[in-house]
C-alpha cells in the first residue's frame, strides 16, 4: 500500500472511530426522543341532545395504557321509563363492540362512568353510539356521540420528557414523566411535579408568582418516573379555557421531601399531529 493510501486509511479509520463512538453515546438520547409511545386512538366523546348530556368521556389507547370512562352522563326524559327502573347504558363502538353500564334511571340524574376493561382489536374509532335499554332489553334511546379528538401536548428537555399529555377546554391528561438520566434519578429519591398555568398570557412567564399551580404530584422518583402511570385534571371553565393558557410543569427532585435540591421546568407546547392518529 502506497503512502497516500496509507494516510487515507488512517484518517478514515480515525474519523470512523470518532463517529462510531458518537453513535454509541448518542443512541440513548436519540431513541428517547425518536421512539415515542404509539397512540392507537385518543378521543373525548360528548353528547348534548334532548336533555341527555355526556361530557368528556375518554377513549384512549397506547401500547401500555387503555382508558375508557370518567365522563359525566346526565339522563333526559324517557316516557317509557319510571324513576328507579333498571337500565343498561351502552356505549357502542364501530357498531361491533360495546361498553355496558348498569344504572338505575332517574330523570335529570347525573352519573359518573368509571373506567372499564380493554376493548380488544380496535385500531380506530369511526362511530360511537349511546344506547339505553330498559330491563326488557328494549332500546328506549339511541343517539350518535360526537367524537372530539384531543389536542396533544409535548414537553421535553434533553433527558426528560412528559408523554401522552393532552388537553381540552376543561380537562387535561397530565401525561407521565420519562427520563434517561438514571444517575440523577438514583441520586434524588423524591420527586414533586407542579403543573401550572400562567395567570394571564400577557404576564412575564419568568416570574413564578404569575403562575397558578393547579395540580401537585408528590412521591418516590422510582414510582413516578418511567412508570407510564398518568393522572388527570378537571378544570373549572370559569377560570377560562385551559387550551388558551400557557402551561408548564416544574419538576423538583430532592433527597429529602423538605429540601429542594434539583429544580427545573418544562414548557408544554402543542404537538404537530398527524403521526399518531
Amino acid at each position: 500500500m502506497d503512502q497516500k493510501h496509507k494516510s487515507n486509511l488512517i484518517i478514515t479509520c480515525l474519523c470512523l472511530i470518532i463517529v462510531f463512538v458518537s453513535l454509541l453515546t448518542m443512541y440513548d438520547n436519540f431513541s428517547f426522543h425518536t421512539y415515542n409511545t404509539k397512540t392507537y386512538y385518543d378521543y373525548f366523546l360528548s353528547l348534548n341532545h334532548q336533555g341527555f348530556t355526556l361530557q368528556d368521556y375518554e377513549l384512549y389507547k397506547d401500547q401500555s395504557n387503555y382508558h375508557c370512562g370518567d365522563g359525566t352522563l346526565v339522563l333526559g326524559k324517557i316516557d317509557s321509563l319510571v324513576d328507579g327502573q333498571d337500565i343498561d347504558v351502552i356505549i357502542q363502538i364501530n357498531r361491533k363492540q360495546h361498553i355496558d353500564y348498569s344504572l338505575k334511571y332517574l330523570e335529570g340524574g347525573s352519573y359518573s362512568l368509571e373506567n372499564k376493561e380493554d376493548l380488544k382489536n380496535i385500531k380506530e374509532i369511526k362511530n360511537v353510539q349511546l344506547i339505553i335499554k330498559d330491563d326488557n332489553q328494549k332500546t328506549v334511546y339511541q343517539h350518535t356521540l360526537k367524537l372530539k379528538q384531543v389536542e396533544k401536548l409535548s414537553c421535553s428537555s434533553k433527558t426528560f420528557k412528559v408523554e401522552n399529555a393532552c388537553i381540552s377546554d376543561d380537562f387535561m391528561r397530565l401525561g407521565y414523566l420519562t427520563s434517561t438520566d438514571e444517575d440523577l434519578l438514583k441520586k434524588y429519591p423524591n420527586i414533586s411535579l407542579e403543573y401550572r398555568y400562567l395567570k394571564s398570557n400577557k404576564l412575564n412567564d419568568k416570574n413564578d408568582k404569575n403562575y397558578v399551580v393547579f395540580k401537585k404530584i408528590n412521591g418516590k422518583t422510582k414510582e413516578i418516573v418511567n412508570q407510564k402511570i398518568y393522572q388527570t385534571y378537571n378544570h373549572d371553565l370559569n377560570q377560562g379555557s385551559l387550551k388558551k393558557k400557557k402551561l408548564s410543569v416544574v419538576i423538583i427532585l430532592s433527597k429529602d421531601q423538605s429540601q429542594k435540591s434539583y429544580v427545573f421546568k418544562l414548557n408544554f407546547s402543542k404537538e404537530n399531529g398527524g403521526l399518531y392518529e
Partner: protein
Amino acid sequence: MNKERYLKLKKDFIVLYLARNGIMTFLITLFTFSLDLSNYYQISFPAIIPYIFFNNIFTLMYFCLLWIFNYLLFELFKIINDWYDENHYQTLKFMYHEHNYSISWMIYVIMAILLVIIQIVQLPTLFHIDAYLMFGFMILRSLKQIYKNRL
C-alpha cells in the same frame, strides 16, 4: 449559447458523479430510518420522512451522524478493496465472453463473516437494516470494480 448550456449541464453532472457515494449513502440512511420508524409507528413510508427531519434535533442529528458513518465506512471499504485488488491476493480467475475476470474472494468471505456476526449480535433494528443495505451497496461496488478491471 447551446454549448454553454451543455458545458453547464456537464459540469452539474460531474458534480453529481463526484458526490455519488455521498448521495447513495444518504439514500441508504433515509431508507433505513424510514423503514425502521414506519415499522415502529405503523404508518406509511412517505409520512415518516418529515418526522425524521422535523421532529426534534436529536433524531436529525443522529440521522446525519449515521449518514457520515455510512459514508466513512464505504470510503474505508473502497480503500481496502482497491488495495486488495491491486495486490491480487487470493484471486479467483475465470474467462467469460472473451474477457478475463479476477475476483478477490477473501473480501467476500470477510464480509460474510461480519454479516453473520451482525446478525447474531443483539443490535437495534435500525443498525441491522443499515448494515444489510450497506453490505449490499459494497457488494454492488465490488461487482462494478470486477467488471471495470476485466481484461
